[in-house]
């Protein structure tokens, strides 16, 4: 009997056993299912290639041998899950990234926002907040900050906490300053922060107009009527289905003729929601809501 069992296994080895890559894919499927079951976060509509990369760098960091080992830890330890989330989400950002985009936002869109007595802006996937402060600085220089409210959201609590503090490494300041000038900055960037030791602390005045909140684009609803939504370099991590559902959420949240700003390499061309928006500045990925009435 034993002999037979062994030979069956051997036969399988030759022809049918899954490859290393297939095993990893299977483990990741199990992991995604566990997370969905336990925390209600559905990662199945993330672009799998980069998710797979992030998960394997997570394994290295946590010193685990394979994806399966992650599963019990994530199921039974909420804090472990938080650090997992921190590792898998890509939170790289900078102030005034792609300065020309911010310049066009300032020159073209802010003039339109001027007509509103109160301006609601949703910054979705704000990561550590650099772009939120960039936006507040521009609003201030255009005389709009006092009537603006920026809702800055992310599903990564760790980076959200950094965003709320608004303290950044001094070594980043030269880059931020250079970008700021390229956006048509009207003052000196140094006017907006206080240097302390090796850090720059952003001014309180900017923060007064920001509300930071946990919001998960996969499962949470919209929470206010927005005049402008900024969501850059977040959709690149989603598959088309999830992109469409998030774009639907944005469409729902925007006021009539509200604006949407996406990342430099994000396009609506392949989206089912393509016709819900019209391009205002195609190169800069600035769109306007089209309503059907």
């Amino acid at each position, binding site marked *: 009997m034993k002999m037979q069992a062994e030979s069956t296994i051997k036969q399988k080895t030759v022809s049918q056993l899954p490859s290393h890559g297939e095993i990893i894919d299977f483990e990741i499927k199990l992991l995604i299912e566990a997370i969905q079951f336990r925390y209600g976060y559905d990662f199945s509509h993330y672009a799998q*290639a980069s998710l797979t990369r992030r998960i394997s760098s997570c394994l290295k960091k946590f010193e685990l041998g394979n994806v399966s080992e992650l599963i019990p830890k994530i199921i039974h330890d909420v804090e472990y899950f938080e650090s997992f989330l921190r590792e898998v989400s890509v939170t790289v950002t900078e102030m005034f990234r792609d300065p020309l985009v911010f310049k066009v936002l300032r020159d073209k869109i802010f003039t339109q926002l001027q007509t509103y007595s109160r301006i609601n802006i949703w910054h979705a996937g704000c990561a550590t907040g650099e772009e939120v402060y960039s936006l507040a600085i521009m609003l201030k220089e255009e005389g709009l900050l006092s009537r603006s409210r920026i809702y800055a959201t992310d599903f990564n609590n760790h980076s959200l906490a950094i965003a709320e503090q608004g303290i950044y490494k001094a070594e980043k300041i030269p880059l931020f300053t250079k970008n700021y000038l390229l956006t048509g900055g009207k003052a000196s960037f140094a006017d907006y922060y206080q240097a302390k030791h090796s850090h720059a602390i952003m001014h309180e005045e900017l923060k007064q107009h920001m509300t930071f909140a946990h919001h998960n684009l996969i499962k949470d609803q919209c929470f206010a009527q927005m005049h402008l939504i900024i969501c850059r370099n977040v959709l690149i991590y989603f598959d088309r289905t999830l992109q469409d559902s998030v774009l639907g959420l944005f469409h729902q949240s925007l006021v009539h003729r509200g604006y949407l700003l996406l990342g430099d390499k994000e396009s609506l061309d392949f989206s089912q929601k393509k016709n819900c928006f019209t391009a205002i500045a195609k190169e800069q990925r600035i769109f306007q809501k089209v309503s059907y009435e």
Partner: protein
Amino acid sequence: MLLMKIAALNNTYKALVIGVSAGGFQALKHILPRFPKNFPLSVIIVQHRGEAVQETSSKDDFLIHHFQQHCQMTVKEAISGEKICKSTIYFAPAKYHLLIEKEESFSLSLEPPVNFSIPSIDVLFESASACYKNCLIGLILTGANSDGSMGLREIHLNNGLTLVQNPATADVDVMPKAAMESHTVDYILPLLEIAPFLCDLMQEEKG
């Protein structure tokens, strides 16, 4: 020998991924324009750019414009979510990693640089290998760092075909030499023989 490898694998190549760094523009000029219009592969390229080039997207356009004018194949920048077509040359956009999804489409990521590079050759090669398996050809050209070696190894492990530019013919030989150190290279080719080799290979496959 070449025939043996193809016969043994009994497959058809679908994509060619190219990693190139310092001196890359000149090297690519000897390769891309020589592919016929209906070349049956998708050609996907990570070209490292210098700092200066990264800053303006217009320089990026230059690379693409140049090859659009001089190539018979269609040349474009890879777009996030785009389905990958054959007979087309794609360049990774500056400042993003380019990855390939299992359903043969592109995705982008802003992860920190890998091997000091964004886009990184390893990131492209590893994801391409997971998608195309043994239907992939990987090629490392001239360059000054070791990005791409891990990715080329991955292609080899998945039974893809691995090619490296002969370092003696490279503007900067660090990258091809680093790739050769992993002992997973099928062919080491002088720059001028790369295009003819690939054209013959695809011709033989057809026949």
